């Protein structure tokens, strides 16, 4: 089954075309990398998947359900870890997770236990009662991922998950994401760290000026070169 199916997606802002007829699939269980320079259309594509952007034309479906027609069902299937820290400043770290689950229609002991598990797993237990503004950059980054996972989505979208974190934490996050993927979760990753995409993703799509300019298995795409060389060649304007 396709976890994600995008068919001729177009997104325009006035005269500006941010995404220009992109089509691709992500099979269930895949670790997929969506790369591209700043302003290429990655975040717009992600926002269209999760409902933050209104699609101009084309269609997106998640696990066979259309994100517009079946918006409520599809939103229960996808977790987003955004690039920005957009946490609720009035809630404690633990409550950020519990309330997020609430917005997805989930509550009770199981959710509180899952929140505690995630806090433990991401090394945030000691900060559970604090507000997010007291966390370090790395901790905030971990919290965005924990929040995206609280309702156990089947597809996890990570927008720059390791931006601004130190090497040690990055390696820890890589190990964690690999484990999630091994357990069956489909993951879509956008990153500017090309070695990260090369390390984690089994397939990579590269967007340039709103168009998909490459879509290949990572090994095939890179070949004898480095991903950086391939990326620069494909995205040179």
């Amino acid at each position, binding site marked *: 089954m396709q976890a994600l199916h995008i068919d001729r997606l177009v997104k325009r802002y006035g005269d500006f075309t941010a995404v220009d007829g992109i089509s691709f699939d992500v099979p269930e269980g895949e670790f997929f990398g969506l790369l591209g320079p700043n302003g290429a259309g990655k975040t717009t594509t992600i926002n269209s998947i999760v409902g*933050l952007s209104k699609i101009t034309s084309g269609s997106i479906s998640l696990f066979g359900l259309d994100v517009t027609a079946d918006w*409520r069902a599809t939103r229960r299937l996808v977790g987003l870890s955004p690039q920005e820290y*957009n946490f*609720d400043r*009035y809630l404690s770290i633990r409550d950020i997770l519990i309330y997020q689950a*609430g917005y997805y*229609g989930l509550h009770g002991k199981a959710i509180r236990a*899952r929140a505690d598990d995630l806090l433990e797993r991401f090394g945030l237990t000691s900060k559970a009662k604090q507000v997010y503004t007291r966390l370090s950059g790395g901790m905030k980054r971990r919290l965005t991922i924990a929040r995206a996972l609280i309702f156990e989505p089947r597809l996890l979208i990570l927008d720059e998950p390791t931006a601004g974190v130190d090497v040690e934490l990055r390696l820890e996050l890589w190990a964690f994401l690999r484990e999630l993927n091994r357990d069956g979760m489909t993951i879509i990753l956008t990153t500017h760290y090309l070695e990260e995409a090369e390390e984690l993703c089994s397939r990579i799509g590269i967007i340039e000026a709103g168009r998909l300019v490459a879509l290949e298995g990572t090994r095939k795409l890179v070949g004898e070169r480095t991903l950086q060389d391939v990326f620069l060649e494909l995205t040179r304007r």
Partner: protein
Amino acid sequence: MIVTAEGDNRANFIGFLTLVKREMVRTFSIINQVIWPPVIQTLLYVFVLGIGLGSQIKAVNGVPYAQYLIPGLIIMQVIDQTYSEGSSTVFQGRFMNSIQELLIAPMSAFEMVMGYVVAGFARAIFIAALITVLGGMLVRTWPIDWSVYFLTIVLVSILFASLGVIFGLFAEKFDHVALLTTFVITPLVFVGGVFTSTRFMPPVLRTVSQFNPMFQMINAFRYAYQSSGDAPLWSSLVIIAVMAGVAYFGALRLVSIGFKLRT
């Protein structure tokens, strides 16, 4: 697996309740901004105008002046606080992007707007209850018709929480949120019969005041305390209900189309 979700298009009642609860957490975490100021302001009005200056004023419509003041003061705070609740939470959510937590969740526009309205009502009823008790203790006046008391607060909360959502969406900076309060709500409330009966006004102004929506709200709420007012109760309630309906559906429409929420 916690989620049952595949193909699940059911309404999200828990999401709605979570939003209401979140708004209450917000209200009580800024208690010095939203709960105590209206209570203290009301106390000052009661002492300075009601008990101090009021001792020199004859009864208004047969009611001692300090007692006459209480319903108007309550509804003034209900208006102010429900508008603040809707406008500040939506604007802050947009400004900090935290509203995206709701926008990516399986919550409909109806559930979101209703969440803000119910949270506004909860804040309003809490403040109204505090002032009602103060009024009872200080000037010995209590509502005599609780159904009118609750109905008026419900309608006014729907109206101003919805207007708050609308202005929270339109605002580009915090300053814009204050526009309605500064230039519309406060002046209209002050000339709408909080401090004096419109019967004391010249005939022309008395007629004009019938078109002041705040007059209708204050008038309706006064019935809860004094069983009389400057205009019929039913007409005031109908006018408030119509305005509340228009504002609610306006807010719902804007959130439905993702106005300044979804790009």
